[in-house]
Structures are given as C-alpha cells and as structure tokens.
C-alpha cells in the first residue's frame, strides 16, 4: 500500500503543526520565566526572552518548592512501594487461591475501581483528623495507596494468573513458603506488571491535587501542586515571572523522568490498552 507523495507531505505538515501546538505553551512559559522583573507582562518582543536567570533563584527561595518536591517524592515513592508490595501479594493470593474470601475481596477492589477519590474525601477527612493523619506524609501515602490499590491488584492478578502454576509447586517442593514463593519466584518474573502499574499511576500520585488540598494544608507538608497553588494565590496574579519560573522548576522532574523512560512508557500504555 504505497501512499502518494502529496499525501505524505500533507500528513507531515499536519503532524508538525500538532507538535508545535503541543510545545508552544511550554516555550511561552520559558519566555515568561526569563522576563526581567521590570517588564510589564508581555510588552515588547514576544519571542525573545530577557534571559533574566535570577528569577529561578528568587522563585526557588520564595516558593519553598524544594521542600514540596521532597514531599512529593516521599509520597510518590512511599505509595508506589506500599501498593506494589501489598497489591502484589494480594494479586498472588487472588490468582492462586480462588477461595470465596478472595473472590469477595477481588470483587470489592474491582467494584470500587472506578469511583474517584473526591466521593469519599469529606468523610475521609474526618477519619484522618481523628487518627492525626492530616498534614502528615504517611497519611497522604495511605490515602494515595488506597486510591491506587484497585489498579495494583487488578494488574498483578491478571499477570500472575497467566504464569504457570508448576512454578509455585516446584518452589513449594524446595521448601519455600508462600511469601517466599511470591517474593523470590513470582515477583521477579512479573517486572513488566510492576512497570505498567508505575507507568499508569506514578504521575497521577506525583500530580495529586484534589486530595492534597484537604490533607496537606500545612506549609511544611505541601506537595508540588499544593505549594504552587498557594504560592500563586499569594501573588494574586502579579509577578508572573516568578510564577512561571516556579512552574518550570515544578515540571522539570516530571519531564525528565518521562523523557528517560518514554520508550517503556508508551509501550506500557499501549499494552495496557490492548489488554483492557
């Protein structure tokens, strides 16, 4: 099936335009972040920034975005580790022991899978206050873990079900107990499952705002979106150069991680789509 050259060129131009449309807002953000503080919004040249790098230093100091980054990193890592370990064990138990109890727990996870967090945030807030978990990173890790748990259980159960049972039996004969079988035999084999779970959930946890706005109100515990929104509200729409510089600092880690792992990332998303 050969395409005509004119069609090929037309498609090339369209794809290029779409790419430009996707990148232009980021370029404008960079221009804005490099504007000198004396410049009034966008008066003057629209395409050439002033290269005023000092904005990044001021933004970093004033916005406390560094603390927020550490908090976001702790929350994301903690949530991923907790959900991979417990969700993996659950997936193993459900895939290998289809007892009534496990069918019931799988039903709960799948049944609630599509319910967004905002539905139970208000009663959850009451509970979190009672157990002193508001404004703590561990509390936020528990909230995010609960939100990601159905996805973990679903992915691990599906992958482990596809593994041959003989694997477990052989290990059992060698004297491994169930936890050892999971951890030493099954878990290393299902690395693709772990990768696709991280791909599907990692950025969402890192970017969480709807829960952070309730559970991370104290300044020291802000995650990135929460810190950014508080910082922006503080300026009430002025000092765009500082706001833009902070936004750039905030999105750099996400972009770097995405670019480094983009191959696995897009492959994982595509495979997830076909399986679902």
């Amino acid at each position: 099936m050969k395409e005509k050259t004119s069609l090929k060129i037309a498609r090339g131009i369209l794809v290029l335009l779409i790419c430009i449309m996707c990148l232009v807002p980021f370029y404008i953000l960079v221009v804005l972040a490099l504007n000198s503080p004396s410049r009034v919004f966008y008066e003057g040249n629209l395409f050439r920034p002033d290269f005023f790098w000092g904005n990044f230093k001021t933004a970093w100091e004033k916005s406390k975005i560094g603390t927020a980054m550490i908090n976001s990193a702790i929350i994301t890592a903690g949530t991923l580790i907790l959900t991979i370990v417990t969700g993996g064990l659950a997936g193993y138990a459900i895939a290998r022991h289809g007892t009534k109890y496990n069918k019931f727990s799988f039903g709960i996870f799948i049944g609630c899978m599509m319910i967004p967090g905002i539905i139970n945030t208000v009663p959850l807030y009451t509970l979190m206050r009672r157990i002193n978990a508001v404004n703590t990173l561990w509390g936020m890790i528990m909230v995010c873990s609960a939100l990601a748990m159905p996805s973990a259980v679903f992915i691990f159960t599906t992958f482990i079900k596809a593994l041959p049972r003989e694997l477990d039996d052989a290990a059992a004969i060698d004297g491994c107990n169930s936890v050892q079988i999971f951890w030493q035999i099954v878990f290393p084999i299902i690395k693709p499952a772990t990768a696709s779970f991280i791909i599907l959930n990692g950025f969402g946890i890192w970017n969480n705002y709807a829960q952070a706005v309730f559970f991370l109100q104290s300044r020291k515990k802000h995650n990135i979106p929460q810190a950014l929104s508080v910082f922006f509200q503080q300026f009430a729409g002025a000092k765009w150069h500082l706001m833009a510089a902070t936004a750039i600092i905030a999105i750099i880690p996400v972009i770097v991680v995405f670019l480094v792992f983009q191959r696995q990332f897009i492959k994982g998303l595509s495979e997830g789509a076909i399986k679902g």
Partner: protein
Amino acid sequence: MKSKKRSYAQFLSLPALIIYAIFFVYPLLKGIGTSLTDWDGMSTPHFIGLDNFTAFFKDARAIHDIKTTLIFALASAVLLNVVGLIYALLMNSDFRGKGIARVIIYLPAIISPLIMGYIWYFLLQPGRGYLFYAAKQLGLPDLIGNWMGKYSSSMKVLVFVNVWQFAGMTMIIYLAGLQSIPSELIEAAKIDGAGNIQCFFKVTIPMLMPAIRINVITNIIGSLSVFDVIMSLTEGGPGYATESLSIYIMRMCYGSRTGYSTAVAMILFIIILIPVLISMRLTRQKS
C-alpha cells in the same frame, strides 16, 4: 498439611484489603450516613433524613454545577475521542520522526492539570496574557476579548485546555487499537471494492470498538470529577458559573457544611455510577 498452607496463603491479600477498607471503603460507607445529618464537622450531628438532598435540588448554584459538570464531561469526552482518533490516524504509518512526534504529543498529559491550567492562564488571561499582547501587536486587540467574563466562553476555554492536554492519551490508546487491526482485513475489504471511507466505517471503526469503549468511559468518568484545571484557570468563575461539583463539595466542606457536602458527593457518585454501570454491562457482553 497442604490444605493448611493453602488456607494461610489465601490471606496474603489481607494487607491490601485492610488499607483499602480503612482509607476507601469505610469513608465511602460512612459518607452515606453523614449525608443524612446536619453535621458541621464539630458539634453533635442530628439525623435530618433527606433534607440535604432536597436542599441540593433547591439550590440554583448546585443545579448549575451539575449542568457545568455534565457539559464539561460530555464535551471533553466527545472532543478527546475525535481529536485523539484523528491524531492516531495521522500517526498510524511509518515515517521519520514518528517516535519523537508521539512523545511530544503525549508530553502535556504527564503534567499536573493544575500547572497546565496556570500555564494557559498566562497565555489567555484577558488584557494581560501572552495571546492578548500577540493579538495587540497584530493590530487585533479584541481577538481574545474578555472570555473570563462569560460562562459560555469560559467553558469553551476549559474544555479546550482539557482536550489539548489529554488528546495524546487517547491517541496512544487508539494507536494501539489501530495497530492491532490485521492489515489483511483492510486489504480484503479493498479487494471486495470498498473505498477508503467505507473501509474506515465498516472495518476500522468496528475493530476499534474496545479502544473506543475504554477511551469514552475513562474520559467521561475522569471529567465528571474535574477539579484541578478549573481551580487554576477560572477558580470556578465568573462567580460560580464554571464551578464543578467536585469544587462545590470542597467549598461546602470548608464552609463547615460537612453533612451537606457528603450529600453532594453521594449525588456525584450516582451520576458517575451511570457510565460505570454501562461500561460493566458492555464488558460483560463482550465476555
């Protein structure tokens, strides 16, 4: 001996279930009870039956929020799928730079919708944004206009930003769907005399049904609980015009109307349940 081992091993799902039960299922069930009270978050709650729900349907702001949420979700879902499918069709053949293009188009989707909202706020703000100055230099100072002052233009901008950000996500899923269609199928249709357009509607679209279903359902459910992008772009304004139900829930909760805000959450839950049930129904039909 073996059966004993089995019975212990089946409970390895317990840690996950405990976390989920405490931090998701329990508050969900508790919310049903709280929604029937006048609780303000501090003093003793009183049972008031369905008063919160009747109050909700009498509140013009609340009804308007339902409308806003539904319009946003449906418009986003339709446009995300149309745009994502067009992108995927454009990208569905081998050409130089395809890999890079895919990464660039997907890039906005990994960034926090809150931050994306702020970035577009810098671009679009009436009288001060980048595009306002660009239009002014081109001699078209009224091009941007005061879109933030009107409901319809604010909604259009919100939907546009949402579609701009997440079209790459639907594209990836449609690309995977397109690549799973065996090329023999399309060649066979062509041999039978089907044109390109006929081929698209009679072969490609039916073969894409699973991808269409995933995309439509996830986009509708995701957009029904929209929060971040509205908070950063319009803060629900002008007035409460573009406030979504999620934002209303948060504001009512902060306004010490805990009982009422959980009732609103229950109403949002019922609205979200509709697409969830439809998707479960469709999945069951498939298997």
